[in-house]
């Protein structure tokens, strides 16, 4: 088994979950309605929980005797391999829901495939997370439809969110030599299969939402290689504050 490649693969998934969880958590106390405040923070908790399981596995693969907190709190910005998509600011509620929808629609088929991976621990995490992700996708896609096919104002905002975020969705399907190796060894799904499934969901939901898919092919990438947008530094300074200020603290 190619442990270095798998480590990178698992680390990316953990970072995606952690950073999106952190972003969603920013809505705590600021949701447009109480129910949504609770929903977004519940989803944030699921994501952080998934990140813990994934980091635990990454630590094993890395074999350097670190623990999940060290990976989550004590790396530098360029060591995080999350998507640019998940670090984008919450914006308005439409922006948050569209960001969530693009991500959930990617995670669902990814977990469905990974559930059958011969890498046992990864399959177990996928099996567990898949059940939660079904609820996440249901929640985000229903909001995308309600906002897109809602009032003139909500439609305008939802379409603006699609137009803004679309450039970050290409990176969902980033792959390098390591990924190709893992795919050829049958350890992880072919990204093209995940992409096909993602596209079907996106087309189906955006159509129902009367939202248009942008026709430009403008791409923003870099997160997967540790090159982040300006926002990432701000996220990390908040996320890592306690560990940096009080090393090894626990609660």
């Amino acid at each position, binding site marked *: 088994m190619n442990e270095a490649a798998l480590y990178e693969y698992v680390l990316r998934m953990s970072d995606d979950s952690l950073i999106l*969880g952190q972003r969603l958590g920013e809505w705590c106390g600021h949701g447009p309605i109480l*129910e*949504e405040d*609770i*929903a977004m923070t*519940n*989803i*944030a*908790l*699921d*994501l*952080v*929980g*998934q990140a*813990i*399981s994934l980091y635990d596995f990454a630590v094993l693969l890395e074999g350097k005797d670190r623990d999940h907190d060290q990976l989550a709190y004590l790396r530098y910005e360029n060591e995080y391999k999350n998507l640019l998509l998940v670090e984008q600011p919450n914006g308005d509620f439409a922006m948050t829901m569209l960001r969530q929808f693009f991500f959930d629609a990617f995670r*669902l088929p990814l977990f469905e495939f990974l559930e059958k991976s011969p890498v*046992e*621990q990864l*399959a*177990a*995490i996928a*099996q*567990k*997370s898949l*059940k*939660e992700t*079904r*609820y996440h*996708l*249901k*929640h985000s*896609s229903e909001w995308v439809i309600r906002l897109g096919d809602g009032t003139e104002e909500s439609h305008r905002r939802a379409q603006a969110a699609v137009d803004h975020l679309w450039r970050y969705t290409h990176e969902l399907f980033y792959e390098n030599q390591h990924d190709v190796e893992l795919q050829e060894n049958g350890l992880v799904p072919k990204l093209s299969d995940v992409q096909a499934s993602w596209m079907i*969901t996106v087309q*189906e*939901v955006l159509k*129902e939402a009367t939202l248009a898919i942008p026709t430009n092919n403008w791409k923003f990438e870099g997160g997967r290689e540790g090159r982040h947008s300006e926002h990432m530094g701000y996220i990390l300074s908040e996320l890592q504050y306690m560990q940096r200020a009080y090393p090894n603290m626990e609660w």
Partner: protein
Amino acid sequence: MVDSSQIRNYLNEVSDPEIPVLSVLDLGVIQQIYLDSDQWVIELTPTYSGCPAMQQIESDILLKLNEKGINNARIKHILSPAWTTDWISKEGRKKLLLYGIAPPVDEVDKKTLFADGPRVSCPKCTSENTRMVSLFGSTACKAHYQCRECLEPFDYFKCLK
């Protein structure tokens, strides 16, 4: 010397901190209990990945066993097979209902999108004329419902499969 069934009995006294009427056994999160060299291993399947109650449950279990004079126990996490609401015991379902939480109903729905929420009976008046207010309730495992007959707002323990 205690045996594993005795330990299992002790765990009846450990409840879910969020839903205190349910013991960890009712909840179905306890799997095998066995002796590994000189340590008792309690296998625990988490409900939701991020459920904050799980950590509390773990320390409550160890605390309870300690109270019973067993201080050589540890928790082992089991991720697969993943926990499902099917594992909540019959007894647990009754307790939920009496506590005012509608127990999970079988949702045949495997299609994620555009599916209607399940028909859930009101725990207060048993009417099926209820509506889902929010898919996410006070905790990740619950959805928020309201009864249209008696107007009671209530939690529904979501089906997780």
